């Protein structure tokens, strides 16, 4: 198990469990979704309606639309259809370069590099870079975002302070170029220092950005003067980085500046004030401090979909002495943390209340948490229409693609998602996603809750497998039900010996228990929740702060 967790940490969060997605071969390029509730745009809903997509474009929407002959008909009764979501900024579809496997800050400075004057690539100054040649339609992130209902994304290269330029891509395609809708529409920058070379600190990054910006201003002046009258003048030196920055300096291209924290935001606003670029304040997590200022300056904003993790339910261990003074202090600390948590969760609502239009970026968020994050923002005051606008119409407008996507309208691209309940409802499943007329179908998630009225026999020796991203881990469970008292042992191939399980409980056909394991000298408890059906079970295991993983198993025989 230790190996499992280490492996999980080493592999990182980008790998996700296998999906059930199935891309259907297009036998026909005409589809009709019938008798659905169609949300054509935030706040506009047509019930019992049909939508026809022909050759990748929306052909008709309405209650009196007839299904064309030869169309593949999807009976979407009781389902909800929305315009496909647009990720306002991410690296979706762009594989992370190998040399950044350990994260850019932990990388090593290559031999022979002068740390005070490193090559631009190492310094992170690559504003000329485009994603075109790196895009991969089968990149895991594409599939992960697609099954959440995302159909398009504004993507930028991986990198450091100036990773490159933004392109709009569709989250489906034969190859990279097939996904590409437009490129070079923006420049992306972030406070990301370089490993052991200049700029190695945030102050280095800010200085370097300012210098590049002013050098670009000089270059533009020189080029203009040279174009007017080159006689007697040195010819301008070509510099692809400065040339890539020139449209930003001229105000022809927006600068998407990553600014998650409140200090980042203030720093970016001051730089914008100094230099005057067209700013899109990107990835904000703590913008409630500056909502009024942003609203007044009319600065476009992209909200970060990553929220702080909610606290785990801390169970008081039995027999633990209560220390009153400690409890008072803990209470105060808990209140402050909770207050702060609410501020994070309310950020989107605060911005919306200030009249700020914003999109969402999934850049920092774990894809598995995105639906929950949206729900938390909605619980804290963001309206569902505002949330939907931030996923559709606002990013479409921000990126200049409102004519193509963002709403369900005749003539627009066939980008949509179908969910089996209103999208923001708990437990809602995305069942279909259509991108540019390509259909993707998904199964509903498995029920992980047991039935308290069912019965189950736990006795026996069970084999189990745990699905951890990128691998599976195996082991055995021996369980004995002694008239309701459940005991047993837990063994993993990564453990030296079996351990007794604790706190086992059977409720209907749902079995829960804790399995203590030793990891790096520390004891921790794996919490299993399994639903038993006959001789098989399915469920989850929570591995402390590392996450929750799927478990499957079957009965091999009776315990000795």
């Amino acid at each position, binding site marked *: 198990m230790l190996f499992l967790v280490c492996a999980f940490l080493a592999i990182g969060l980008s790998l996700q469990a296998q999906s059930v997605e199935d891309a259907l071969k297009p036998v026909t390029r005409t589809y009709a979704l019938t008798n659905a509730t169609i949300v054509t745009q935030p706040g506009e809903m047509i019930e019992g309606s049909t939508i026809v997509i022909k050759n990748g474009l929306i052909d008709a929407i309405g209650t009196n639309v007839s299904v064309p002959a030869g169309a593949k008909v999807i009976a979407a009764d009781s389902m909800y259809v929305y315009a496909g979501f647009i990720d306002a900024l991410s690296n979706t579809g762009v594989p992370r370069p190998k040399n950044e496997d350990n994260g850019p800050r932990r990388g*090593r*400075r290559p031999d022979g590099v002068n*740390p*005070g*004057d490193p090559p631009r690539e190492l310094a992170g100054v690559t504003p000329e870079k485009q994603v075109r040649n790196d895009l991969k339609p089968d990149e895991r992130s594409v599939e992960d975002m697609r099954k959440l209902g995302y159909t398009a994304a504004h993507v930028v290269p991986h990198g450091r302070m100036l990773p490159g330029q933004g392109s709009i891509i569709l989250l489906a395609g034969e190859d990279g170029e097939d996904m590409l809708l437009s490129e070079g529409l923006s420049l992306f920058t972030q406070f990301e220092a370089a*490993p*052991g*070379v*200049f*700029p*190695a*600190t*945030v*102050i*280095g990054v*800010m*200085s370097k950005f*300012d*210098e590049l910006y*002013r*050098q670009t201003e*000089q270059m533009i002046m*020189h080029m203009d*003067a040279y174009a007017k*009258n080159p*006689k*007697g*003048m*040195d010819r301008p030196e070509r510099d692809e980085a400065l040339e890539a920055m020139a449209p930003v300096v001229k105000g022809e291209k927006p600068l998407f500046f990553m600014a998650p924290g*409140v*200090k980042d935001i*203030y*720093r970016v606003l*001051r730089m914008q004030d100094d230099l005057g670029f067209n700013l899109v304040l990107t990835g904000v997590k703590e913008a*409630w*401090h500056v909502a*009024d200022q942003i609203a007044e300056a009319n600065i476009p904003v992209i909200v970060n979909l990553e929220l*702080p*993790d909610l*606290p785990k339910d801390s169970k008081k261990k039995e027999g633990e002495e209560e220390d009153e003074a400690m409890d008072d*202090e*803990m209470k*105060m*600390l*808990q209140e*402050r*943390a*909770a*207050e*702060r*948590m*609410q*501020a*994070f969760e*309310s950020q989107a*609502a*605060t911005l919306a*209340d200030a009249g700020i239009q914003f999109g969402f970026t999934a850049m920092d968020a774990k894809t598995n948490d995105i639906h929950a994050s949206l729900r938390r923002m909605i619980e*804290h*005051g963001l309206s569902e229409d505002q949330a939907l606008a931030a996923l559709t119409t606002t990013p479409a407008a921000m990126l200049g693609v409102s004519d193509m996507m963002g709403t369900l309208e005749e003539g627009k691209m066939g980008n949509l998602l179908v969910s089996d309940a209103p999208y923001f409802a708990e437990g809602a499943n995305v069942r279909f996603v259509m991108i540019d007329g390509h259909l993707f179908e998904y199964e509903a998630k498995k029920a992980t809750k047991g039935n308290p009225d069912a019965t189950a026999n736990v006795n026996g020796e069970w084999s189990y497998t745990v699905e951890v991203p990128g691998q599976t881990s195996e082991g055995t469970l021996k369980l004995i039900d002694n008239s309701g008292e459940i005991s047993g042992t837990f063994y993993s191939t990564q453990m030296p010996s079996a351990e007794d399980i604790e706190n086992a409980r059977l409720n209907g056909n749902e079995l829960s228990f804790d399995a203590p394991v030793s990891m790096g000298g520390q004891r921790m408890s794996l919490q299993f929740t399994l639903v038993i059906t006959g001789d098989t079970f399915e469920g989850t295991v929570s591995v402390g702060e590392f996450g929750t993983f799927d478990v499957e198993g079957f009965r091999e025989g009776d315990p000795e």
Partner: protein
Amino acid sequence: MRYTILIALLLFFGVSLSAQSEAGSMLIKNGTVLTVTNGTMENTDVLVIDGKIAEIGKNLRAPRGVEEVDATGMHVMPGIIDCHSHIAIDAVNEATNPVTAEVWVGDALDPLDVSIYRALAGGVTASHAMHGSANAIGGQCETIKHRYGTYNPNDLRMEGAPRTIKFALGENPMRVHGEGRGIQPATRMGIEQVFRAAFSEAQEYQAAKQKYEAAQANDDNTVLPPQFDRRMETLVDILEGEIIIHCHSYRADEIYMLMQVCEDFGIDRLCFQHVNEGFKVAPELAEFGAGASVFADWWAYKFEVYYSTAYNAAILTENGVVTSINSDSGELIRHLYHEAAKTQRYGELSNDEALALITINPAKQLGIDDRVGSLEEGKDADIAIFKGHPLSIYAVPMKTIVDGKVYFDRNNDADDQRLDVDPEEVMPAFFLDVQDHNYENCMQGTYQTFNALFRG
């Protein structure tokens, strides 16, 4: 419902926070006023209007709506100024090059650093947030006022304070660049050459700019400016007297060396930091007009800092050197008044001389003595109120006031003063800085960089 309460709370905070950077008014009644520059006045009032000291005198009346603060039995002194600190910044050392004049710690101020509050609790109202000493020519520094409570980094800046820059002599730049990378400076001689080469290059840059400007004035568009270079721009500003050099130093020979380099390049705004061997070159420092910002009694944390004395500040003072005592530490900053008092045990400085070491003298070294550093009519109302004389071992800071607003009040001192609460971590981790007093904080951030650079 909880949400509505929260929003109300946020709005309330929003209002009170933005109000904090505004100036305040108050009448401090009946204290023992230690003006530092104009003697001590018993049973005296200080009237503060809109963040400025409006009047100092007896039996003053508070204008309508102005709050009175009873200072009977208390000592009222100018807010303490720390000429060397690294609190309230997110980056200390850009240790990648022997010369990094282009970087500026003022770009990365950290208003959420709880050290600011701790400094206020020691009567400190302003500090010099410095770049580290990894490089011969380090980054530019920022003079900040301790307006704790704001989330806006810009609110900390002491608007109008002159620009300053960190230089460093001796072992730190030699180790990082010479030993670490086998480049200049590997020796103290090399450090001098780094300075001379940098200033010479800056003179060429300056000349090229002047040539371009002259051509522009003659409508000659064929002459191009040198490519914009922040490092050179900064060095030119030093040559033109717009930036005060604050140089990390220990040994007398090197201190003397930098004065000669500055003389050769026509630079006269210079203050030495640490300057443990300053007592050996005190007359020379006085003649040059260079300041000295020292520790009271802190040394022997590396080879070049063994030859030291607790009489350093007194000897420098007696020789007419503008001398201050600094902290270079988030801990020591809380009791600079004790540090100043040590000069009365080691050197028998007068009360005013000792207090000057942490008030008007650091203000002079930072070029802000027209604004702060003493209690005088027209100056900023940056004030510390003590129970007991601040140079007494029994001194207790009671109230600390910046721009006429109370930022620390011992009678209203909440347990948790954090601004930056981690929503995921209920129990915050408190780190005691074990490097304090073993090694100067100037090298903060270089260990990681050092490892990344050379051991990686």
